[in-house]
């Protein structure tokens, strides 16, 4: 979606990371969902990158 089209839409936000940002959005009644994020592959970046490649090839 082009940027100019985003400007015409209701903002719907996926928040990943600091939960305080999500709370700020919800306090303003903005449509948002908080991802229960944790590092992929137990924080092993090499393994996470391999998993990412596998996912893309699926």
């Amino acid at each position, binding site marked *: *979606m*082009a*940027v*100019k089209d*985003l*400007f015409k*839409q*209701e*903002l*719907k*936000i*996926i*928040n*990943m*990371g*600091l*939960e*305080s*940002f*999500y*709370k*700020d*959005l*919800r*306090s*303003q009644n*903005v*449509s*948002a*969902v*908080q*991802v*229960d*994020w*944790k*590092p*992929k592959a*137990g*924080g*092993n*970046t090499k393994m*996470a*990158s391999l998993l*990412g490649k596998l996912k893309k090839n699926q």
Partner: protein
Amino acid sequence: MIKSVIRKNAYYDSVTLMLISRELSKMPGVEEVLAGMATELNLELVENLKMVTPELDGLGPNDFFISAKFDETQTSIEALEKKFFELLNDKKSHSDGQYQPPTLSSALNHLPGANLAQISVPGKYAAAEVEDALDAGLHVMLFSDNVSIEDELRLKQKAVEKGLLMMGPDCGTAIINGVPLCFANAIRHGKIGVVGASGTGTQEVTTQLHKMGGGLSQVIGTGGRDLSEAIGGLMMIQGIEALIADPETEVIVLISKPPSPSVADKIYAIAKSSPKPVVIDFIGGNAEAIRAAGAYPCLSFEDAAAKAVALLKGEKVKDIDGINLPETELEAIIDKAVATLKPDQTDFLGLYTGGTLADEAMKYLGESFPIYSNIPLSPEMAIEHLEGVHGNICLDLGEDQFTQGRPHPMIDPQTRTEFFVSHVDEKTAVLLVDVVLGYGSHEDPAGAVADSVAEIRQRLGKVGKQIVVVASITGTELDPQDLASSTRKLEEQGILVMPSNAQAVRLADRIMQKVLKGV
């Protein structure tokens, strides 16, 4: 006694952990405590604090630990753990109890029509998440820092290809469709569009616009490195083009620290072809080149806001470079302030939580007297070159060197509170501070400054001294921390509260000029 407790596969975000660690450190008998994820950085911190225990062996970034040094007659590791989870539950209970999907793809199913991902995970994991978000067609606000410039370039190229925004990394502020993202103020809706490469500079321009009666269509952040040679202004260009195409936007404002010259030329060329007026504050950018592009150069963030509002109203555009007070009244304020000082008080100290506001202060004050900093105007003025402990200093307390293992001072005033104690002394004449309100910021930054100034007044009062404190508030009456009560808290401590950072800086300069003349 040094002990640790661990929980494998329990992930909590860094800001939550740092805030809770600080609460735990206030418990009786606790000398030092760190509650964190077992990242390399945190394990190094524990080692530096000499709190390593065998339990920490083999832990990874998904494992949580508390390590503490404490007096066992007063507390126990179990008591600390119990308190941790109480504080965590307390924080969680303010949440709305909504289901939290574990991945981006499940979040997309959960929120049909999602159009923006706001990402603030630790930097080393951020690029992969941004890539997935862009692939899913989402615009991205990337708050995380520590993302490599190679990743930034690749992700921005992908975003441009797809016609998406990729605001960041290290992007602190944006307002899209009226929604403040990360650290942003509540500003009325209007016809001025902003593209900003520096967070608090953008916050200052937007709050000034609001105070002057203007309003915002969109604020697009780019991250601080966007105008570097390597990135080439990809997101600022994308942002300007979007604002040109946006029927609501009538005036465009661009904010950045000085860009690389070739990128600046690119931006000026786009400004030249823009059918809408463009106001540019690149803090020390080339005014002639900006004028030649048919755009409007600025003297300060306040000036940028004033010019944008004047252009919108069809009024004559003029430079704003003074203090909004009649000269006689101003003289009286300065004389009264200087009269409270003793002859050996000659140091200037600026303690900023907003980096770009510190930049603006130094650019102006640096013309009057040498000023040392952790973000110096020129390399020889780096703080490590300051001999002894006295001199004129201006610090950006949000820089990495001050935020290792603790939240940014806009979130938690503690770092600056400590600097008020350690750096304000009998030699200090003028103390200059910023107070940044808005979403993301601490719930009462003005109250924290007021408390510190009360402590300073009491401490220096014992040796028969006072200091002059000048402040400005980056905020509006619509922000969650009320602007009026914030102003009142500062004024009750005798702080001179100015309507903008630029005016606070000019007043501090006028007072320092008089102080230095008296030497």
